[in-house]
């Protein structure tokens, strides 16, 4: 076991992890933060997307031990995030989910897209979202929700990543 220190959803803490433990397994099994979903476990589906030091990250493609000293944010840490509040509302009203399995990853990636590109159009969102797989919706409502959230936020100053 290894000792690591990280800031998880705003709270600093020390944790014991096995070297082979991915960040995703660490979050789900050790921290019981189960918003982060695991689909493929090899970087193909995007369901496990979180933010590490503010950067969108596939938590199945990062060892927890590599995150020593870093800042990790999961969907659970987004309660008070202004960008996420708008996204959540548009996902809800715009019917941007059915079974919901991909939704945490979709929301984390959508937030990353809006923080980088502010008011992306349909085509940009589709391209940026191409690493996230959804098997229910056909993507149309997800893309619409993200475009609408971007337009609503508009020129409002973005939250710190």
């Amino acid at each position, binding site marked *: 076991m290894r000792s690591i220190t990280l800031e998880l959803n705003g709270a600093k803490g020390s944790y014991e992890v096995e070297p*082979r433990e991915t960040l995703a397994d660490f979050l789900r099994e050790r921290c019981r933060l189960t918003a982060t979903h695991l689909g493929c476990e090899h970087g193909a589906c995007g369901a496990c997307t979180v933010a590490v030091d503010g950067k969108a990250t596939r938590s199945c493609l990062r060892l927890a031990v590599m995150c020593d000293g870093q800042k990790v944010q999961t969907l659970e840490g987004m309660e008070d995030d202004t960008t996420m509040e708008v996204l959540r509302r548009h996902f809800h009203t715009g019917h941007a989910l059915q079974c919901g399995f991909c939704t945490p990853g979709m929301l984390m990636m959508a937030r990353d897209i809006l923080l980088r590109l502010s008011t992306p159009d349909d085509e940009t969102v589709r391209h940026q979202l191409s*690493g996230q797989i959804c098997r229910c919706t056909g993507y149309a409502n997800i893309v619409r929700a993200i475009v609408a959230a971007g337009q609503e936020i508009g020129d409002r100053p973005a939250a710190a990543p």
Partner: protein
Amino acid sequence: MKAAAFDYVAAKTVADASAALASDGATTAAIAGGQSLLPMLNLRVALPDLVVDLGGLDQLKEVSVSSDHVRIGALITHASIEDGLFAEAFGGLLQKVATKISYRAVRNHGTIGGSVALADPAADWPGCLIALGATVRISGLKGMRSEPVASFVQGQYQTSLTADEIIVGFDVPRPAAPLRWGVFKVARKSGAFADSIAFAVSQGRGGPVSVVLAAAAPRPHLLPKVTEKLGAKQVSDEGLRAAIAEDVASLVPPDDAYLMRLHASTVLRAVQEMHGR
């Protein structure tokens, strides 16, 4: 799946990393961004006893731009290049290549050094760096050495790296005249590894040209007939197509009409894009 158990060490210095990687009797793997190694660990395709993390090595993050070359540290991520690092030096070529690699979440961690060290036949950076005539800088127990990327990448997942060696970075010569370039990639979906990818670069008009095709053979190849044809004063479209066909035929299995057309068209489109600049 979950990775099998392994030991882990975060290297503090380049010498540390080499010593750990050369551990007697152990299968070792270096990890930088881990965007290729983690899938292989999770699928248990790679089964190392020890994983050596290079992520903390500042020497591998060096970036400098001088009048004659650009130095790119091995740990520079695809996302930093996508966001504009070196955008000026090669007329936007590196930025374009970076943007087309996998997905943003992968580009945030995946590194240029990791991509070249893995030497996937369909990877973007080895072919691009070969087209640009780049040199790879390597550190090991015996000290530093450097080698052209063109000879460093030997085959499918094969390089000249010995167990103790790591890539420190790359020196990419700056073109004598503004770079004209073209790159064309065919992948089954956005972000997937290429089925075919071609790079064409020319130092100004009438300057030295180099054309590379990757994903067609176990390693990227410079295309000699195409290069020779493009060096001539006048190039007919037919002449160019014939040269491309000749070079591609030397790399793909005989009688595979689909692969011939696929690779010939990526090379042609890369050359056309270069000519349009």
